């Protein structure tokens, strides 16, 4: 249903807005391809060997068209599920694909020529990617979580989707986290998805943006320092410089990740040692009360910063098998 928004809704999306969305999608698609190009050995700024371009395309094709994870013995990789194309999608692709691809490649490669032979299969993969259940890693997503009890189900299920702005009658979406609680072993699912920076900050002890800045600045400083050390050694002993360079190759990235991950684990352990038992056997009333508190973290931040985009009332839907009710700012509506 999500993948065929036009068939189920009449939202009247502005055609110019659709073209913008399509261009952004292609930009993100190309960005992901360039990541594979880097993984295949390309150095930014240098010319791209044709063999490297095709090697990256092969990796990218596998990522886009097939489910991740190891196939079972004796089987090939599992093709991703796909949606159906409509004529509006064909129109927008035929009109804008090549210009969007050129613009994205031009902006990112900045004067480096792409081997011409790889362009047609890359365009083809871009078109194919539109139908399969895949989104570029580089995209900015928004999310939607659906949860509830199926017919005759004793336990609820949760489906978390990520999706991009619509174009050509298509809403690119991907199931992100289908989850179902398991008694005894995994009775609680704690899942935040939108407006959740403060929730993540509460759980992990730091906001995602704070962590990113810390990671990038620390890595940059370490990398520059290591480069200077290697250069100094190289002035007298090139072989030793290469050995030191190899030893330090992953240190900047791993050191920052180690520090952040350890701090995260420490904080989340503290949080869940207290929170988990409270949620473990909670009924819908208790769970909805906790959900309200978590959303209040975000609302309070917006109120303090005078940003009206997120504000009260906070609506919470409480569900138990066979019944549900709404709460408005904690009061049954």
């Amino acid at each position: 249903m999500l993948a065929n928004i036009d068939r189920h809704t009449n939202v009247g999306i502005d055609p110019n807005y659709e073209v913008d969305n399509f261009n952004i999608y292609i930009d993100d698609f190309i960005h992901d391809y360039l990541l594979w190009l880097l993984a295949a050995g390309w150095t930014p700024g240098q010319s791209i060997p044709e063999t490297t371009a095709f090697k990256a395309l092969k990796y990218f094709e596998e990522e886009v068209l097939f489910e991740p994870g190891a196939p079972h013995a004796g089987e090939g990789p599992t093709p991703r599920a796909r949606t159906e194309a409509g004529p509006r999608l064909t129109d927008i692709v035929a009109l804008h694909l090549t210009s969007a691809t050129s613009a994205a490649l031009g902006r990112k490669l900045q004067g480096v020529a792409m081997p011409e032979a790889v362009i047609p299969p890359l365009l083809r993969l871009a078109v194919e990617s539109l139908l399969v259940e895949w989104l570029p890693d580089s995209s900015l997503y928004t999310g939607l979580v659906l949860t509830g009890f199926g017919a005759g189900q004793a336990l609820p299920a949760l489906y978390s989707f990520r999706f991009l702005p619509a174009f050509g009658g298509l809403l690119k979406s991907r199931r992100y986290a289908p989850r179902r609680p398991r008694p005894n072993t995994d009775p609680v699912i704690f899942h935040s998805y939108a407006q959740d920076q403060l929730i993540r900050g509460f759980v992990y002890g730091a906001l995602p943006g704070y962590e990113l800045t810390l990671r990038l600045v620390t890595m940059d400083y370490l990398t520059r320092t290591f480069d200077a050390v290697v250069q100094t050694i190289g002035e007298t002993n090139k072989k030793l410089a290469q050995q030191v360079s190899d030893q330090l190759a992953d240190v900047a990235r791993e050191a920052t990740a180690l520090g952040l991950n350890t701090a995260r684990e420490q904080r989340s352990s503290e949080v869940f040692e207290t929170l988990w038992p409270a949620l473990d056997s909670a009924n819908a009333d208790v769970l909805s009360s906790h959900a309200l508190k978590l959303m209040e973290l975000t609302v309070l931040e917006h109120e303090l910063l005078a940003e009206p985009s997120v504000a009260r009332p906070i609506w919470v839907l409480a569900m138990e098998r066979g019944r549900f009710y709404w709460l408005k700012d904690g009061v049954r509506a």
Partner: protein
Amino acid sequence: MNRTDTVTAEANRRADAALAARTLVEGLSRDITDRAPVAIARRSRPLWARLTRRSDPFTVSRAQVDQWLAGIEARHPLLTVTAQTAGASRLTARAQDSQVA
């Protein structure tokens, strides 16, 4: 090498490549991550010409697009509610575990 070994080796290779790409997301050159538009429009040669040094612009016909889309429809299963199988759920649930406590 038997077929099982081949499949395992293939899976390992894909996992290594995926890890390498994810790693590079964090350590990317600013040339790649910087998405600010550059003044490409001011240059005299068309963008597609500078990208590949060819004399004609890239083109894709409507028929070609239709053919590619039809190919995917033929080779890939249609996404349905019943396609949300336990196997697919397990895969994505594991990925989610690292992000959600």
